[in-house]
């Protein structure tokens, strides 16, 4: 099993969600995140005083998938989240040792 995590632009969330549903993904976790990449943050001006905001708002999507689906799911997220502009985000995959479904207590791929 794999955990696919995507950090994306907040305004791309709906498209990514729809694309993942269309690709057969049955569940996901979405949370608000903030951070910066190579582009750094942005500047805001309040009554003429400039503030550099390093940490910009992002959305984190987490999807648990079978090993065989990890690459395809990653590609779905990348395609749906892409705007071509700086700050589009990152998607990565990490191995997962075990998963348990809280309701039934079952473990492993069946709990996905």
């Amino acid at each position, binding site marked *: 099993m794999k955990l696919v995590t995507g950090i994306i632009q907040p305004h791309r969330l709906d498209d990514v969600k729809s694309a993942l549903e269309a690709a057969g993904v049955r569940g996901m976790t979405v949370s608000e995140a903030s951070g910066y990449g190579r582009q750094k943050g942005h500047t*805001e*001006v*309040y*009554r*003429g*005083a*400039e*503030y*550099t*905001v390093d940490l910009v708002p992002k959305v984190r999507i987490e999807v648990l998938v079978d090993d065989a689906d990890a690459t395809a799911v990653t590609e779905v997220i990348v395609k749906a989240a892409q705007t071509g502009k700086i700050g589009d985000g990152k998607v990565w995959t990490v191995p997962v040792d075990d998963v348990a479904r809280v309701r039934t207590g079952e473990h492993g791929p069946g709990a996905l």
Partner: protein
Amino acid sequence: MEWDTGATAWMLTSASLVLLMTPGLAFFYGGMVRAKSVLNMMMMSFGAMAVVGVVYVLWGWSMSYGEAGTGGLVANPFAQFGLSGAITDADGSAVASTLGNYPNVVDIAFQVTFAIITVALISGALADRVKFGTWLAFTAVWVTVTYFPLAHMVWGGGFLSGNENGLAAMIFGVTDGAATVAPIDFAGGTVVHINAGVAALVLAILIGKRKGFGKEPMRPHNLPFVMLGAALLWFGWFGFNAGSAFGANETAGLAWVNTTSATAAGIIGWLLTEKIRDGHATSLGAASGVVAGLVAITPAAGALNPVTSIVLGLVAGALSALAVGLKYRFGYDDSLDVVGVHLVSGLWGTVAIGFLATDTGLFFGGGAQQLVVQILIALVAIVFSAATTLVIGLILKVTMGWRVSEDAEVGGIDLAVHGETAYESIQQGSVIKEVRA
């Protein structure tokens, strides 16, 4: 007595409108501070309402409008202590207002609201770092030593009024028992805005900067609050300015229209300055332009026409937008720009009357005399406010102390001083202790 019920109703409405300005100010200021100190910021406005609302009834009215003392500096606080003789006379009849055909108690209602908002304005310079008890003590003392005497000097027939013994009469003489060139302060350019602005500057220097000022970001935590506060201030300001006609009449109408045209122009002046200087027209700029325009038209609302009011407001917005940067240049932490907005636009409005007043202004064939009088009353107000505020501020510094501890300031004054926080992202706490009886 047959009262003018229209005037009575309008003045009571105006008093209520002006009272609404102070909670409006709480939103305006509250939105501009960080999330950890919004409650304290709002509490300073509510504290001013609490203290001044009591003090005004006890000796504030008497000191402002009671039996005049010597030198035209302040009226006798004991002559009408507790409003004795100010509402009903010895026969039990209602005392009439000296300003319009309505009961005097209506004037008392109107004037207390001015005293409240003036003190509350100062709190914007003291964000995040001042002991609440010291603020309440300051409120009581400052309104007594600084505000009431200045209100008496300007509006109560004292030294800065058109009275025959006043400053203006000394310079340009007396005609028919009053100064030939009377100072114009329609609704409080000197008493309210210059006064509060100078006090804010003195206290900001005396108390010192917020920890991290100029280094850490201190962004407004809720700009919609700021916009809401500016809107409430504008609405309430109709009572402030149109109410200062002391009747439901054409002067009130003119003041209403002038207030709107100057304020609208104030927004444009501020936003244009921002767009040129910073590249963006911001919501904080629009809200600030509202206040700058309102402040500038306050002394002038009855003396200008709607077109000259636009000129006044445009310049006020631009001037204040530029002036808010002075605190960084000179290194004083006027946290929410009381000096940049109220002192600068208050001064501009007071002095601009000398140029723009419909009958007596320099640009309208009135010569330079009105201008000279306006500059002089502004200067006297500055010196008086600065001197008295400095003495009060120093005494409180060595007695009660002004600053909260560094830990309280860094951790958030709301929690440290009031035992409350404004926001929780995740619900915390699990046990509810029984409420103590």
